[in-house]
């Protein structure tokens, strides 16, 4: 799953080496925390959060298949 997020985000940003993903897992949910270079933050969020929404849509649809847990993607500073 982490790989999927990287595959989506890395080509979009200007500083792919600064992309970092952390997972925070509890019994009923998984949170993927996405860290990007401060200048890239706008790129992964997009106008009206459109890019962020697209990333979440894809991650959720991929996650829905093979894990029962609720999945979240957070973009953090």
């Amino acid at each position, binding site marked *: 799953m982490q790989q999927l997020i990287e595959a989506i985000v890395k080509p*979009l940003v200007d500083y792919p080496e600064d992309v970092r993903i952390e997972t925070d897992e509890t019994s009923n949910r998984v949170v993927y925390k996405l860290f990007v270079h401060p200048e890239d933050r706008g790129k992964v969020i997009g106008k009206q959060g459109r890019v962020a929404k*697209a990333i979440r*849509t894809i991650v959720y*649809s991929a996650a829905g298949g093979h894990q029962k847990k609720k999945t979240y993607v957070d973009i953090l500073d």
Partner: protein
Amino acid sequence: MKQTTQIGATVEEAISLALQKLGHTREQVDVEVLQEGKKGFLGFGARNAEVRVTVKEIVQQQVNNETTSQPTPVVEEQSFIKETFENEPVLVNEDQSIHHEQQQVDPIEESKSYLTNIALGMGITDLIIEHESDGKYVSFKLSSEKAALLIGKRGLTLNALQHLTQLMLNKTAKSFMILQMDVEDYRERRQVALEQLALRMADKVVRTRKSVSLEPMASYERKIIHNALANRLDIETYSEGAEPNRYLVIEPVK
């Protein structure tokens, strides 16, 4: 000792990239092939070649001397390699990836490999992409065994993928391009379904004399409905609300 490992679509490509990076000629280095590249079938099963290029000791000393006295030959060498490289974009495999951005890449091929990578992450290994381009309009036709996963509920996933791929396309393309993506004719089937829905709703509006609001839809889907009802004189259509929750309203004409 100067050494570098380089990934490329083919062994040849990887070597020339590495040479470009180091600024040496083919004779001045030792090449060790770590992994042979595979072309794959229609971009699947393709594997990048990996080579380790080591600059020979003696050459390294020579070059050090050379660079102090006359650094020009090295520069010439580099530009020469670059030139030959740009002259053969046909050889560039569509799977060649983000690893080397210094070379000129076709934005369409680039976004195709981007899409393939995402699909791989989603567990789709048999994605086939055909493309057509007409001016600024580019259309991708995808097919896979797991088409349903690519489409998602009401095309949600498909729209998300289309949006991201369009971003990718415009990141590399010189002029603005509009991407239309379709999975196994989903969009065509959706258009027929929307037109039927439009006509059914229009009849309902006429019958009940009450306006009907449809669920929020993307702009091009609303356009399909507007178009389908454009020549009906007994109703009027307009959109309300703000994106992305903009929805269409069908109203009876009084």
